[in-house]
């Protein structure tokens, strides 16, 4: 139940894109078509899980032990970037099909702020105190990102056909649509706690 609570919270209440406004760049950049948005969402989920599985032990067993907590950001960036590159090389060799579908997105998100945000938040948040919870939280955040991407690509396909005033065309109307989409998720705050218990 606790794991379900973590997932629901990170998908709906603390959605990284729509509530915390992290990872806006891919959210606006790659959400034009549904299949691209899905590909990006899956790739981000994958990288978030991977990054957490490495950065959590690094923080708990290396940085904290030697009192180097202040180096967190720069070390995480380095490690995540190297790891994603490494995984890309391995995928290319052993699973070319997966590399072909995820490959173009992986270099884009090596040090995406949503990925870095999840790993740092997993350390900062006091309710996430075990490795398992950190992984579940990352999964939830990834699904939340995917959810936001898919949702917004639907909104955007409608925007393509709309005829807004000239000043709003292009990015402005997209940002307004993103704001309204993010508003809709605020309805969930409080609901998750009520459903799954604190």
């Amino acid at each position, binding site marked *: 139940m606790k794991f379900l609570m973590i997932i629901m919270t990170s998908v709906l209440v603390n959605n990284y894109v729509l509530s915390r406004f992290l990872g806006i760049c891919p959210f606006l950049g790659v959400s034009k078509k549904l299949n691209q948005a899905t590909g990006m969402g899956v790739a981000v989920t994958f990288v978030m899980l991977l990054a957490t599985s490495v950065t959590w032990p690094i923080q708990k067993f290396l940085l904290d032990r030697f009192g*180097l907590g*202040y*180096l967190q950001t*720069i*070390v995480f960036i*380095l*490690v995540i*970037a*190297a790891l994603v*590159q*490494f995984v890309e*090389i*391995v995928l*290319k*060799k*052993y699973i070319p099909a997966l590399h072909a579908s995820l490959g173009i997105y992986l270099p884009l998100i090596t040090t995406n702020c949503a990925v870095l945000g999840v790993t740092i938040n997993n350390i900062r948040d006091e309710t996430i105190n075990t490795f398992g919870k950190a992984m579940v939280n990352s999964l939830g955040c990834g699904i939340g990102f995917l959810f936001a991407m898919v949702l917004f690509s639907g909104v955007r396909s409608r925007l*393509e*056909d*709309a*005829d807004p005033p000239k000043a709003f065309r292009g990015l402005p109307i997209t940002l307004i649509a993103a704001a309204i989409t993010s508003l809709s998720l605020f309805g969930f705050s409080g609901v998750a706690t009520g459903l799954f218990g604190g």
Partner: protein
Amino acid sequence: MLTAILTAVLVVAATGLICSVLLVVAAKYFHVPVDEKEIKARACLPGANCGACGYTGCDGYAKALASGEETRSNLCVPGADAVAKQLSDALGLAYADVIEQVATIHCGGDCAQAKRRADYQGISSCAAANLIYGGAGICPVGCIGLGDCAKACPNGAICIENGLAHIDTRKCTGCGICTKTCPHHLIDLMPDVERVLVTCSNTDKGADTRKACTHGCIGCKKCEKNCPSGAITVVDNLARIDYSKCTNCDTCAKGCPTGCIMISDFSGIHRYTVVPSAPAEKTAEKTADPSEPAKV
């Protein structure tokens, strides 16, 4: 103070070093050998990844050429003859002219022929009109005529006349952008050597098609019986031409009761007419292109 700076620098440097060593080892150990021929072939291709060759982008085509499963060097449409020549030289393949692709519209129902059931006054875009019961025409698959394809065409090769899109083949480069914009998927690319075309996409029964449009294919199978080379079959009340068997003899177009099988008038403008072109011109067109590879 100094030790703090030194520790930070050393730790970060060490982390960077470990990561880079890991990556170097991985790059060596998991190295995927790339065929030299493939690199050569890929260097010749323009890199537009348009897919006109039938492969998934330039990399896919280069791979197929290198492995020997593809022997035709003339499939790159945007690269045209120059790229075909380079590829043939680089890989030692037989050279043939690139057969240009042109866009064709599988609908011939203009304002006079296709009946409307409503007057559409919304946003002037096919995509928008298509959201409301598939457009104002009775025919569910016909040309909406609001010109999304014309707006998308980078070469200005498409014009809308009488509520129907027409393609100027002199300007068309076969890029295929229009094929993706049509909400009814009426436009597709075909080799620029074919001259007969079924200008209808309606698969409803003959009587229903008739009610919607006087130009539509009613599935009478006359063309199927008349065709001397057996290239036409009627599937789902719509005639379909198998271009690997078609000899451009025009028999189908002459016999079609609704006139929906049409012949290009060779003027360059893809406005098909039912008037057959002179036979002499036809043979000239055929013999001018002897190197044409088998069409799929």
